[in-house]
């Protein structure tokens, strides 16, 4: 019931955001949405595992991701407000309204999709996210943005077609079982009756479809362009909660597979995709010269690691969930900080930047810490999850894969590092005029510090409840 | 104690003997065997000229050189009565103290800023580096052979059993003689009598030293000769009583000096380029000695 209320509320807010021209009221609406979201999250957390509307069941995985979403949405909304305010000369009330409406829609669609217990419902919300994301990507109405959104939309259209075909095959395999309730629980409940052939096909198609959202080989391509072209706060969303959406989809279907004899086959498929993803990210990290795209590729690398952990099983599944949550906390910090970089240099090419430490101390420290986190060096939180993932690979005797991954990661750190330190320390190019650099208040970076600190805390000293939730989510996988 | 005095004594006539031998070999009567010492005394009386490039280093170096050699001599035993000071591994100390002196003399050569002396310094540094291993392996094989690790204990317990051990002794003597020649940069690696600076090693390093300093340096090299002679003599003295050992010591010293003289008069100096490999031969030979020692002890398997 509450979900319907929430969605209607969201739709109302979107509508009024689009049609209302008053700036103040718009921001008020956004704030309202923020509180609504928090309330929603709190409510769902309190009645976990209660079926709502027969399609929604906030299980622990959904709750975890929903809470992470709530946690990062607030700073992201705030920073998109700053973004719109601070530097968009050509910002019309309409575009502003559209931007916020799309953002609200995206956030809530993701949030609800986490909770859905029915593949079809998930699918619908995935469509919604594509719709809203495309608006965000196309916010700057220029040719490049157009290209980005075109690719994103088209690839996503193809990918959700894949998912749809996958669902059809799933239904075929259910046909044999003689059940017509397509909720994950019921499928998992009588996994032994499924027709394996169709199940295999359906997993393959659904997996491939969701890779577009998750940012994994083979369909990672459009996502990179999207994160590059979208405004940074939107990019932060695309790089965190939208990827999580893909993760949820794959995770739930994979959970079914693990109960069937196809388990090892599914693992192989996932490992292939994951390794390729890490490889691709290594290829581009070592040569990329566009800061935003670099962040996007590092996201691909992390998703690859998550999938490896998932496929390795054992402690790996725990690590995968932990890793994706920490990544959700860390990646937005980078994207939000990117705003300030752009304010300083008016460019996203690594050739035009330098000596950021001089122009914006606090921001530079954020970049430094976020770099440490994103490359999972020990003081950072992701190190723990990555360590556990490696450990799971080690335990399940994927030594060769482990070594390959380690080499690739080293290369990635090299590429990432040389760019980041070029940005932070090497002297700024002669051409830029120092006069135009705006004075940036340290408080702009506050939220990023919070996010990074949260990541470290969650990793090294996780609250008991948090651990329980993850372990409960792991139980889906046998 | 006794060995110290003996070495000082030997140092007085040693170079004289060498010179005498050489002049006889070249058909002259030659000066008396104490002539070199007289020259040194003359030098010590003279005043000296300093280059305006030089610094304090240049003044300290000769003294440090002398004192390093003196300290080294303190450790040389005489048969079965030890030197002033003796402890396990003192020959390591011995080598390093000498190295200290060498270090000082080299930098003092560089101190003058003259290209000739730089040349000499560079050669000196390289050759002494090449000599070190031979000495250490030789002492190592003695340590292996006798099971002791100090000059005194080694030489007091050194005794030749089988033929092969005599052979080893001979080889060791040979190596030591050559080490002494190189350390004092005499024939065949260096010819002090040549007057072409480009081909000298030790002499060219002290071009700018004069008067007192020059005297010290030259006397130091005599001392060095005597010291090596003493060590060589220790190969043969063993545990003999004084009334045999002391004459034996003198005999060895004389023999050594004459040998030096003979070599210098009948051998030509090597080409500079050939010196390194020649010097390195010593290391290989001492390796052979080492294996010989292993063989004797039957540890070779």
């Amino acid at each position, binding site marked *: 019931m509450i979900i319907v209320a929430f969605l209607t509320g969201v739709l109302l807010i979107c509508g009024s955001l689009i049609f209302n021209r008053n700036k103040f009221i718009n921001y008020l609406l956004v704030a309202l949405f923020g509180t609504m979201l928090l309330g929603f999250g709190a409510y769902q957390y309190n009645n976990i595992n209660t079926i709502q509307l027969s399609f929604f069941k906030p299980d622990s995985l959904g709750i975890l991701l929903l809470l992470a979403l709530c946690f990062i949405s607030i700073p992201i909304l705030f920073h998109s407000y700053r973004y719109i305010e601070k530097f968009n000369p050509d910002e019309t009330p309409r575009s502003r309204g559209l931007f916020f409406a799309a953002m609200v829609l995206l956030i809530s669609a993701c949030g609800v999709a986490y909770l859905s217990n029915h593949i079809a419902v998930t699918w619908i919300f995935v469509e919604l996210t594509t719709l809203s994301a495309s608006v965000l990507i196309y916010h700057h109405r220029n040719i490049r943005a157009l290209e980005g959104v075109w690719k994103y939309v*088209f*690839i996503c259209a193809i990918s959700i077609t*894949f998912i749809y075909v996958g669902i059809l095959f799933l239904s075929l395999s259910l046909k044999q079982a003689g059940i017509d309730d397509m909720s994950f629980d019921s499928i998992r409940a009588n996994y032994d009756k499924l027709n394996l052939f169709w199940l295999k096909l359906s997993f*393959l198609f659904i997996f*491939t479809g969701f890779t577009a959202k998750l940012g994994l080989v*083979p369909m990672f391509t459009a996502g990179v362009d999207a994160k590059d072209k979208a405004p940074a706060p939107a990019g932060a969303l695309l790089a965190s909660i939208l990827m999580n959406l893909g993760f949820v989809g794959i995770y739930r279907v994979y959970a079914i597979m693990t109960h069937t004899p196809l388990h090892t086959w599914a693992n192989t498929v996932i490992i292939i995709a994951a390794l390729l993803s890490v490889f*691709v990210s290594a*290829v581009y990290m*070592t040569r990329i010269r566009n800061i935003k795209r670099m962040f996007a590729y590092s996201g691909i690398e992390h998703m690859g690691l998550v999938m490896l952990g998932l496929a390795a099983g054992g402690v790996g599944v725990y690590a995968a969930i932990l890793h994706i949550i920490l990544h959700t906390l860390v990646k937005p910090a980078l994207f939000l900080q990117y705003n300030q970089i752009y304010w300083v240099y008016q460019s996203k090419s690594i050739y035009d930047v330098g000596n950021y430490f001089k122009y914006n101390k606090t921001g530079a420290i954020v970049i430094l810490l976020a770099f440490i986190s994103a490359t999972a*060096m020990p*003081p950072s939180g992701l190190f723990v999850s990555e360590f556990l993932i*490696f450990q799971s690979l*080690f335990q399940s005797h994927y030594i060769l894969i482990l070594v390959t991954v380690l080499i690739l990661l*080293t*290369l990635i*750190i090299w590429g990432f*590092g040389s760019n980041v*330190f070029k940005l932070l*320390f090497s002297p700024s190019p002669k051409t830029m005029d120092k006069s135009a650099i705006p004075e940036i208040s340290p408080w702009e970076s506050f939220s990023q510090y919070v996010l990074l600190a949260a990541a470290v805390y969650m990793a*090294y000293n*996780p609250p008991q409840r948090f*651990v329980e939730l993850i372990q409960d989510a792991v139980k889906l996988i046998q | 104690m006794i060995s110290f005095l003996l070495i000082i004594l030997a140092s007085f006539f040693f170079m004289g003997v060498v010179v005498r031998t050489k002049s006889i070999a070249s058909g002259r009567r030659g000066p008396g065997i104490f002539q070199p010492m007289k020259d040194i005394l003359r030098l*010590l009386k003279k*005043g000296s000229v*300093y280059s*305006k*490039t030089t610094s304090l280093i240049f003044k300290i170096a000769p*003294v440090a050189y002398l*004192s390093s050699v*003196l*300290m080294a001599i303190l450790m040389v035993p005489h048969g079965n009565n030890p030197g002033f*000071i003796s402890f*396990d*591994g003192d020959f390591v100390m011995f080598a*390093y103290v000498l190295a*200290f002196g060498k*270090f000082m003399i080299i930098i003092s050569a*560089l*101190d003058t*800023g*003259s290209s*000739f002396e*730089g040349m000499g*310094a*560079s050669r000196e*540094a*390289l050759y*002494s*580096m090449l000599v*070190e*291993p031979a000495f250490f392996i030789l002492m*190592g094989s003695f*340590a*292996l052979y006798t*099971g002791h*690790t100090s000059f005194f204990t080694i030489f007091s317990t050194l005794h030749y059993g089988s033929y092969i051990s005599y052979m080893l002794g001979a080889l060791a003597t040979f190596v030591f003689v050559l080490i002494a020649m190189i350390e004092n940069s005499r024939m065949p690696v260096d010819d002090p009598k040549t007057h072409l*600076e480009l081909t000298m090693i030790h002499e060219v390093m002290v071009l700018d030293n004069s*008067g007192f300093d020059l005297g010290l340096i030259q006397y130091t090299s005599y001392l060095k000769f005597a010291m090596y002679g003493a060590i060589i003599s220790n190969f043969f003295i063993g545990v003999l009583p004084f009334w045999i050992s002391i004459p034996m010591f003198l005999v060895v010293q004389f023999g050594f000096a004459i040998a030096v003289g003979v070599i210098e008069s009948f051998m030509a100096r090597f080409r*500079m380029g050939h010196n390194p490999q020649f010097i390195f031969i010593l290391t290989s030979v001492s390796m052979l000695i080492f294996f010989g020692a292993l063989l004797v002890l039957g*540890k070779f398997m």
Partner: protein
Amino acid sequence: MEKYFIEFFNLIGIIAIISFPFFKTKGRGLITLGVIIVQVIISSIVAFYVFANGPVSHTFTGSFITGPIPFRIDFLSAWFILVISFTFLTGAWYGLHYMKKYKDQTDNLALHMTAFILLYNSIIDICLVQNGLVLLVVWEIMALSSFIAVIFEHNKKETIKAGINFLIQSHVCILFLTMAFMWVKVKTGSFDFSAITAYTSAEPAITGIGLFLFFFFGFAIKAGFVPFHTWLPLAHPAAPAHISGIMSGVIIKIGIYGILRVLLLIKTDMVSLGYFILAVSVITGVYGVMLAIVQHNLKKLLAYHSIENIGIIGIGIGLGCLGLGYNSQILVVCGFGGALLHTLNHSLFKSLLFYCAGIVYQKTHTMDIEKMGGLLKHIPRTGYLFLIGSLAICGLPPFNGFVSEFFIYTGLFNGLQSNDFLFIMALLFAILGLVVIGGLALICFTKAFGIIFLGNSRDHEVRNFSKEKPMDFFPLYIVALGILIIGLLPVILAPALLKITQMYMSASVIPVTPAYNSILGNLTSVGWYSLGFIALTALLYFLRHIITSRRAQTIEATWGCGYTGDASKMQYTASSFIRSYRKLAGSFLMIKKDKQEASGLYPEHINQETHPYDRVENWFIDKPLHLIRRFLNRFVFLQNGNIQAYILYGFIFIGLVILVPVIIEKLAVFFNFLNQL
């Protein structure tokens, strides 16, 4: 007490860092120095307490990720704490003066100081913590903060490059350690160090060796054993002088600490470990010094000498392992004792040398030896301190370098009594290595000191040398004093060393006192001997002074064989000084030489340059990296901006996943069919 020590210790550092925003640069500098001094005092007190009353330990209840976190301060930790603290003290003090030149770069300095304090705290924590995961964390904090400290002059391109190289290599190092700890964790389910002992003593020896190799490679990268040394010669010239001094003095020693710690924990076939370490170390030492000689950048030269000294330390460690394997206590004492002592000594004279190099740099604004000459007249204090450092690093009496080398020599020669042929050969090998190292070091530092400080300036640049301020030299004097004291009274350190070395022997064996006493006796006599040496030299110099003061003295130009013009260009340069060496060693090294032949009756101005290059770096870093780049760049077509390709990826993926198994299956059928024929 120890509990509060750790918390209090780190708390001070953190408070200091937090307080930075409220001060000006000068204040920050003073705070840094003050904090370091306070922390040094505290930690030294604790270390001495440990030496007096035995090890202390305390366990924190960590989270369920880390498991319990034991902190244990035993003799080994205490020793390293003392070594590190001393160098950090002098380093901070010297750094305060050194950094005055850059006092306008406020933020940069603040970052640098933060990194400095973090560095000290983390490095001390490394010596205490006994939990794998936490160790990794502290380790990386150490690596990162040292990275930040290194790239202080980050407006230079090569500094950044060197820094990133350093960062990547230390990351590889931590990867090895991660693998090792992961191994233990997977097998025993615990991060505690004691788990390593439990695991390896239960398993066959080969497991222990494998585990040790992982640890060793990890620590070797940090310590700079060949072939893992390539970051050192790049990072040292890039860093500011005090950081170079600290890095070469203690940071690379943390690798040694790690190796010693692991040797303490792992129970396995020590003999083969000993041979392995011995071989690696001898190669390291010889290779390091061989390259050091041909370097003409002073800091790079010193960096290669750090590699050489690591080799010497390694020889000691290897000897100790062999001693454990053949259970000969004298070897254990001499080996590990020598290694530990040399760790201390090297930290002293190497930091001193780097500090002097820093002063030289600030006076001449170059590190190129060929441009220097005659500095002794302008900056005499620096010169004589550098001379002391050089004599010490060459291991010449009466300075401390000799003592530790003597320690190791004693062990080596004692070992010759053994009956094991292989062992004797190994010892011979080691002796040879040590001797060659000594000789080459002599060449190298006669060159370094002679060319830099003696003769005349070799380039015509006129530099105005400001007067040396005596106050600035205080830390250097302290270090020099330490060098001399250890050189003369090595015996004062003997009890501590014996305490540590006994940790390596299993509790069952009772230490034989005569062996120790003989060693102590040697040390004392070495000390007396050195004292006598100094006394004699002084006496002789005094005599000489008295005599020559009465004689006539004239000051003339250097004898120039009749040439009376400006001879400063004719002096022997660094490269000509080592020319004959270069001819000998050229085949081992990689020296790019570009020379122009003089031609014609009146030849034009010609010049010749030699650029030494590191062969190992070429093999292990450059070539593989180049190949990998080439390989990766093959795949850049993936993101080609063409949407049709993007769509195809999806279909191709699905198609392959479906078809490949089918094809394989059919092939299998076909081959079975063939087999049946």
